[in-house]
């Protein structure tokens, strides 16, 4: 089946971010900037990295596409499949469990009617369990893009959080500077 591949084009602000990161490394070491560039790409292109986007990153860094795939598959923050508008990255590690993370995850599953790794039918939320986010004193907690939502230990707080998120528009962080 023929596929029409849209050209991958970063915004000007995104491209400026990318160039800034590349400038942090010695000449010939531009590949070092791959992780920050993947973060920029994920923010710009709907929260995940398609093969086309990864190929574009390879082109920018002047490396082989396989080198980008290799890195993208190692790190858990990069989504290699489409995701919902808001990805709920929920901490499921021991210290948060002492404060009710298991119960919070169960409640989210029930309320959104999805399992771990799934996206709601309306495309609004994806549930992605992750490991300790260095916020163990304020668990149960989760992350959505660059924001931590902490102490989600009651149903009311969880409901309120989901409602707020439903009405939150997605912005690329470096545009807010």
């Amino acid at each position, binding site marked *: 089946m023929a596929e029409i591949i849209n050209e991958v084009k970063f915004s000007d602000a995104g491209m400026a971010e990318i160039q800034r990161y590349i400038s942090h490394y010695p000449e010939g070491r531009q590949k070092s900037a791959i992780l920050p560039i993947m*973060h920029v790409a994920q923010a710009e292109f709907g929260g995940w990295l398609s093969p086309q986007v990864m190929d574009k990153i390879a082109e920018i860094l002047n490396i082989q596409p396989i080198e980008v795939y290799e890195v993208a598959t190692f790190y858990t923050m990069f989504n290699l499949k489409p995701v919902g508008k808001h990805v709920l990255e929920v901490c499921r590690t021991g*210290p948060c469990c002492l404060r009710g993370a298991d119960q919070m995850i169960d409640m989210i599953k029930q309320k959104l009617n999805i399992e771990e790794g799934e996206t709601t039918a309306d495309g609004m939320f994806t549930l992605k369990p992750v490991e300790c986010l260095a916020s163990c004193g304020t668990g149960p907690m989760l992350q959505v893009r660059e924001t931590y939502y902490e102490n989600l230990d009651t149903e009311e707080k969880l409901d309120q959080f989901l409602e707020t998120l439903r009405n939150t528009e997605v912005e690329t962080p470096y545009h807010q500077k």
Partner: protein
Amino acid sequence: MGIKILTEHINVPGIETLEVYRKHGGYRSVEKALKTMTPDEVVEEVKTSGLRGRGGAGFPTGMKWSFLAKPEGVPRYLVCNADESEPGTFKDRVFMQKNPHALIEGMITSSYALGANTSYIYIRGELMFVLRILEKAIAEAYAAGLLGKNIMGSGYDLDLHVAPGGGAYICGEETALLESLEGKRGNPRNKPPFPAVKGLFASPTVVNNVESIASVPWIVNNGGAEYAKIGVGRSTGTKLISASGNINNPGVYEIELGVPVEEFIYSDEYCGGILKGKQLKAVVPGGSSVPILPANLILKTAAGEDRLMTYESLSDGGFVSGSMLGSGAFIVFDEDQCIVRNTWNYARFYHHESCGQCSPCREGTGWMEKVLHRIEHGHGHQQDIDLLVSVAKQIEGNTICPLGDAAAWPVASAVRHFRDEFEWHIKHPQEATLPGAVYRGQLETITA
């Protein structure tokens, strides 16, 4: 109230700005070091201070610095380890978020001591919001002539950058971190060569934890000998402790090393006692990788002495009856917590985070997770307990990096101290899998 070296001004409004930070004595160590001390003199002060690495291993910082190779014409690097992914640890995140200039000051003074002209702060990718706080502070420092060329007219140049990771616990291990910083998968390197000889971009490199680096300005300002007066014995100075679990006041506390564990748990100055007045069951005192200790052994050593918050006291008794200070992540379990479930959770974590390079770690962590999962879910066999011990033993010491040990120790120690709880799960699978069921000794169950 003990002395506060790292957190004295942390709650001052506006401390994240250069102006307020300088008003409270910020960047004095840069001026003092760059204008009145040679790099070697700074290294000497840090050696004298007895400061030990705060990332987990506790290796003396000054000694590490003195190992740095200095071949002619080759750049040297200082890399700050802000990966902070050890479960239970959140001190570096809180510290950087609230007081970014304090880390930057430490980076400048430390980079000067090591002769590095480019330095990096590698921060876990989940902390992008902290990266932005650091970058803002770095921009202020450049504008004020504290970074860049000819800092404060001293002739010393330094560029400082922040690099985000991508979500991988293993990138906290220093050689995996360097791989990641070079834009590769975070597979730990074989050692030797050590980073001090061949680190970032194959150049001599020092990797230090956020807290270690942030302790340097005080040492430069007040002298290593003054620092060494704080604390107990070889545990000098102060330590940030991330306190979590079933306590009244979770949070980050700066303690003088030597505070009794009992005081740390029960005093209102720190944890404020166990949540809802429950009983203390166990503590993991140094992050998920260190051995868990039951209440009696965390409060007193096997010899009956008060356990103190020091490297030595927490490890007293070795792995038979002791643990480790590690990264200072103090995780508290009350009587309602199930040790089997927690051990399974940690085993799952390490299996998930193993990079897969060495078979004992890759296969062993998978086995431990699987066996613990079946015990927790009521399908365990009597031989499983010994199987766990034997798998843990086969991992320990047989891997490229210490993640293997970090995965083995929590399992081995949980079985050592809570064997009857594991047996109860295996012998009474129905009771043990009831919601909220917890073993409370002598086969008594309480269901929630």
